[in-house]
């Protein structure tokens, strides 16, 4: 497979005395679906937050797309091409589904205050393009008929989809999904799996944090397992599944 899109080098993060991440080094290759699993509190979301700039790591760092990722401002991560969804869905609740996705276009568009006031041709064209692209993305995640509903009125599954559409609107190279299947039933999970697979086929690399081991093992090309903030193993699902340390971490020694 191709070279690494994201490389984490000895990333460490602690909160007081708690070592949430102990020198975690992983590498995500272009075009793959990479699973990050581990028991509750293993440090998966902390890793996510370090990568997307919400936390500043205490040690180590990331190389993304050939250049170091300066993790001091979250909006820069999005600019570089890292988009994420949240474990506890974070939509703009009182904006419509369409507007939510349109906000996602912010980082790839550039209309200024002056442009907005004057409504010159370039601004109008950009605005129309934003709207069109947002509609296309809603169609892509199959919730276009909910475009004009407020995000907070969408069903749980649709909210997850909307969050993915909003993340895709930033044209990410790496899409990070934080437990997208949490709280979903079997059918919804199957549909989600199809969606994620489709996104990968369309050329976006995916980092997936998930509790649903079946989903991860079925979907991911490679899987890393965290336990107590440390990386236990990084390999293809078939190997990870049989690894004694992983079984111990999940079932208790």
């Amino acid at each position, binding site marked *: 497979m191709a070279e690494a899109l994201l490389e984490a080098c000895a990333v460490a993060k602690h909160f007081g005395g708690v070592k949430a991440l102990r020198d975690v080094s992983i590498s995500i290759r272009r075009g793959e679906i990479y699973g990050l699993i581990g028991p509750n509190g293993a440090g998966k979301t902390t890793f996510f937050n370090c990568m*997307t*700039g*919400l936390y500043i790591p205490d040690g180590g760092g990331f190389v993304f797309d050939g250049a170091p990722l300066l993790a001091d*401002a*979250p*909006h820069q*991560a*999005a*600019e570089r091409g890292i*988009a*994420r969804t*949240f474990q506890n869905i*974070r*939509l*703009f*609740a*009182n*904006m*419509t589904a*369409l*507007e939510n996705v*349109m*906000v*996602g*276009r*912010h*980082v790839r*568009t*550039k*209309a*200024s*205050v002056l*442009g*907005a*006031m004057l*409504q010159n041709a370039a*601004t109008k064209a*950009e*605005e*129309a393009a*934003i*709207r*069109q692209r947002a*509609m296309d993305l809603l169609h892509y995640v199959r919730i276009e008929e909910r*475009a*004009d509903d*407020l995000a907070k009125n969408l069903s749980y599954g649709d909210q997850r989809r909307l969050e993915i559409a*909003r*993340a895709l*609107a*930033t044209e990410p190279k790496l899409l990070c999904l934080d437990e997208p299947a949490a709280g979903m039933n079997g059918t919804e999970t199957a549909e989600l799996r199809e969606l994620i697979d489709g996104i990968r086929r369309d050329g976006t690399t995916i980092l997936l944090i998930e509790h649903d081991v079946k989903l991860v093992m079925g979907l991911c090309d490679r899987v890393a397992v965290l336990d107590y903030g440390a990386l236990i193993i990084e390999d293809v699902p078939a190997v990870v599944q049989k690894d004694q340390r992983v079984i111990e971490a999940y079932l208790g020694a």
Partner: protein
Amino acid sequence: MSKWLTPRSLLGVVLIGAALVALPFVAAMGGQAWVRILNFAILYVFLALGLNIVVGFAGLLDLGYIAFYAVGAYVYALLASPHFGLHWPFWVILPLGALVTCFFGVLLGSPTLKLRGDYLAIVTLGFGEIIRIFLNNLNAPINVTNGAQGITLIDPVAIGGFKFAGTTQVLGVSLSGPQKYYYLLIVLAILVIIINLRLQHSRIGRAWQAIREDEIAAKAVGINTRNIKLLAFAMGASFGGVAGGIFSAMQGFVSPESFSLVESISILSMVVLGGMGHIPGVILGAVLLTILPEALRYGVGPIQVALFGKMLVDPESLRMLIFGLALVLVMRFKPAGLWPSPERKRELQEVL
């Protein structure tokens, strides 16, 4: 934009336009004081719309907004009065005032970027007071603001030879000073409303709303929340600055006592009462809260005399009582404001 050209909407525009043109003459029947009240209503529309950007769109609670009004007013007063002997034309000072208040907006915004809710409110409240106290005390060692006495004899607005103070004949119609200011204000108000509407439905406006809804999610989709917040403060402040400049010119006099905390709070009340984040609602709030108290002031005294034969309650204190009661009632029964934004059903066919 084609929806503006239907006969019905055209008729509506014409009717509203005619009403707006006729209004100062109707008001003048009750005396020029009513025309002045109308003018103040429009000034408060400016202020409420400016504050609406910060509070309504971006969700940043600002209790010191009047400071920008003060800065705008003093910029005009200092540059167009005998105080420094400067008499710059108003079309230079007004944009300059807007720029200076923009700067003050950023000045207030930058230390408060990480604050939210109550904490932000307290800091902005402090900022408002600091500006007022500065204006009160900057008469020594160098006399900049003339302290509590304020600045007098400020130039009225004049375009070319046409002065906005005093009565003039225009096309055979006698126009009083306040009536002329009214037309100037209406033109500016339409401009301000258009700017606000356009901002709201732009990339920037959406970014403001995203920050209001969820700042962390806004960062995650790549919004530079620092710059976008500062932009909200700066834009909001500039409207206050323009309003302040016109206030200065209209009154011919400014002093620090016009810019008290109560003013900040009443502008915030206009925004909240009208419908935070919804431009027509905010305009309604501003107009109602300017005109109703004045109507009460004129109405309460005579009614009391007619009913009881004498003045029982001072109209001024009754005004505050009714004002408070109105606020409580609105918050109880219409917590989203008198005219909140409807859950919009966008006409997608406009673009698709």
